[in-house]
């Protein structure tokens, strides 16, 4: 049985809707989180990101000033002084595949379509904590490896990287390691 000590994690929640923020806060506190910071727009969230250095960011997509997609792109600046690696969970009512792809290409770690559920949110956080992916930096992308399956032989999408087998990075997740040792 794998569990997360939510009280060891610091969250930043960004959503312009106060009802959704309340729901998220309720869920995270129920999971055991103690540190949950809230922002109602992308600009405030970015400021709070620098100030509080959250472990995990949960952001809505559609927001005033700048949206969740732009917020993700601003966090994922490899040369920034802040931490560009924090997991970002995009929680949105957008439910088209095209949106998932856009979010992924902006460096979002996990995508969670509304309506929100306790189970869905827990699993996304668990993924962030237990299965971190290596980061990839290319000319036009910086973010978690968009190939979730470390076995390159099963990848069927367009080839964006050059190189052979030697470049495949196998990084067993903590869950896998625990299963082997347990």
């Amino acid at each position, binding site marked *: *049985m*794998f*569990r*997360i*000590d*939510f009280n*060891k*994690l*610091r969250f930043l929640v960004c959503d*312009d*809707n106060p*009802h*959704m923020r*309340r*729901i998220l806060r*309720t*869920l995270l*506190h*129920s*999971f*055991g989180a103690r540190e949950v910071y809230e922002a109602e727009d992308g600009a405030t969230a970015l400021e709070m990101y620098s100030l*509080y*250095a959250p*472990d*995990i960011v949960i952001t809505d997509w*559609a927001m005033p000033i700048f949206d969740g997609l732009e917020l993700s792109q601003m966090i994922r600046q490899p040369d920034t002084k802040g931490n560009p*690696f924090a*997991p970002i969970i995009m929680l*949105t*009512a957008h*439910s*088209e*595949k*095209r949106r*998932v792809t856009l979010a992924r290409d902006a460096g979002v770690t996990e995508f969670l*379509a*509304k*309506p*929100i559920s*306790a189970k869905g*949110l*827990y699993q996304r956080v668990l993924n*962030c*904590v*237990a299965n971190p992916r*290596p*980061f*990839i*930096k*290319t000319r036009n992308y910086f973010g978690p*490896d968009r190939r979730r399956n470390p076995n390159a032989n099963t990848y069927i999408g367009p080839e*964006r*990287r*050059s*190189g052979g087998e030697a*470049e495949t*990075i196998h*990084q067993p997740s*903590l869950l896998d390691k625990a299963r082997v040792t*347990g």
Partner: protein
Amino acid sequence: MAKAKKPELQVQTFATHQVITQPNPLRGALRIGGDEHDDPIARAEQALAELSSEFRDWMAIECQRLADAYVNVQQHGFTKTTREELFRASHDIKGEAATFGYPTAAAAADSLCRIIEHAPDLTKVPTELIDNHVKAIQAIVREHARIDKFGVQQELSRRLRAVADEYLAAVNHDRPEHLEAILAPSIVPAD
């Protein structure tokens, strides 16, 4: 957790990209075992259930926001601001209503979002199409307590979606990227 010292990065450089790995900075929050009877998901669901007494009021607020946004559209036409307000109001209902116990309102709001997002020219959208969506959402929320009306609500939102999709497919016949998005299945699993 966030105060832990910065982990060392391992960078492997290739012709077109770099692969950056680091010791998992969140590993301290993962534990194996613990109290078998403690179910954080059930605890969170219980907390949501306790919050649900407020959902009716919240839904009324969201519904009023939608009505206000629609009045602005009626008074000023579709400007960047009025369009954005109407989209945000319906988009929030689409995302929240099912959590609040109003799944048919969420479906009708989803249909309205699709019209606003994919109609090539909102000024040419038949007035009744948007009007009927807004009124349907309001009626669903108003009649929510009447269990016997749930079937009617489902049928209403289903019919609205069918009419909206038919309209959007017709006006986007020469816009393949929109047509693809309109016809693509939702990533949200059906109930």
